[in-house]
């Protein structure tokens, strides 16, 4: 794993100078204390930085990588895609390279596609990245959204298991709710993010726990065995709401949202990379990832902690 965040920390007090809000309100409603906001860095720059660190920590080299998948919904350039830019910058010579956009559930989707490619024999060593620069799409005059989002990237190296070695990535449970397409939007030309907060909160806190439990079931892992739960870092109260329904009192619940805000597809790999870096979860222990967001889409799987 590896992650990258821009150096600029933006506090709630700074946002209170832009819009009518305050630190207490933001902490209470969404559970965010600070977020990182990019300067000149592009989505590809942040993705490359995170991927470079993941590659270094994996012990593999650029020559070993044959697949690069980037989950993002905030890349401005239409072509080349972010995956090709990352590959070029890291000196990965000829990988299969593609971006996917399922908004905030992107990393779990990307991990699912990489897992499938490796299982099918179409790839051996993949880099899976979630990278977002949401600040490019944030309306800094809208107090209901500008307090939520942050920028950053996280990445994981995923390799084929050796003969007889247990799978590190469990079966993905994924899907969408197309009838709720309007609940989270980045629509049109030069758009801003907009969402129906109550509808998203309701869906997230009621519909997702059963799907997350299905991911455990498909991986053959009892929820009580989970060492950690790393959901998309949308809102601390959504995270608490899902965790309560999963009934996993002993698992670490990732709360990187407090310091990083909501970074969409980057939030799961960012949070997981930090847990790994701090050695909070033993290597090999089961961790439940679950992404959800615009679409509405969702995807999750149990992985063995790197």
């Amino acid at each position, binding site marked *: 794993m590896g992650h990258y965040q821009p150096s600029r920390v933006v506090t709630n007090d700074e946002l209170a100078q832009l819009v009518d809000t305050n630190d207490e309100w933001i902490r*209470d*409603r969404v559970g965010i204390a600070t977020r990182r906001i990019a300067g000149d860095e592009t989505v590809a720059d942040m993705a490359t930085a995170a991927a470079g660190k993941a590659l270094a920590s994996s012990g593999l080299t650029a020559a070993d990588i044959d697949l690069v998948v980037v989950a993002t919904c905030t890349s401005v350039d239409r072509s080349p895609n972010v995956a090709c830019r990352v590959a070029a910058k890291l000196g990965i010579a000829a990988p299969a390279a593609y971006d996917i956009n399922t908004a905030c559930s992107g990393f779990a989707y990307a991990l699912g596609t990489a897992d499938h490619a490796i299982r099918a024999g179409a790839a051996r060593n993949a880099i899976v990245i979630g990278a977002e620069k949401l600040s490019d799409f944030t309306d800094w005059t809208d107090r209901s959204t500008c307090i939520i989002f942050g920028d950053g990237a996280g990445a994981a190296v995923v390799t084929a298991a050796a003969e007889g070695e247990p799978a590190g990535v469990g079966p993905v449970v994924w899907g969408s709710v197309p009838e709720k397409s309007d609940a989270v939007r980045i629509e049109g030309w030069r758009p801003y993010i907009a969402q*129906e*907060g*109550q509808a998203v*909160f*309701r869906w997230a*806190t*009621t519909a997702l726990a059963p799907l997350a439990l299905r991911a455990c079931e498909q991986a053959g892992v009892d929820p009580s065995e989970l060492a950690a739960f790393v959901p998309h870092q949308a809102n601390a109260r959504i995270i608490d*709401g899902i965790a309560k329904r999963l009934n996993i009192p002993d698992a670490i619940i990732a709360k990187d949202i407090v310091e990083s805000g909501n970074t969409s597809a980057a939030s799961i790999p960012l949070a997981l990379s930090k847990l790994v870096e701090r050695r909070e979860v033993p290597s090999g222990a089961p961790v439940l990832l679950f992404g959800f967001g615009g679409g509405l889409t969702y995807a999750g799987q149990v992985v063995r902690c790197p």
Partner: protein
Amino acid sequence: MTRDEITSGLAEILEEVAGVNPDDVAEGKSFTDDLDVDSLSMVEVVVAAEEKFGVKIPDNEVQNLKTVGDAVSYIEAQS
């Protein structure tokens, strides 16, 4: 169910979800202004009320439920 029964059922939910003192819950009270229930807690109240009273309260209806009395009337009409 009588309106009083629905009100006391809502009071139980409000206490559990948002820490509202049940004695403060009455039909004339506004969820946000009088009982300090924020927009996300209101969603939790609605979800719990659906379960408790066996009714459906769609997303677009939630914003019309300004007071406890509004919610009691809606639940009474649905059940």
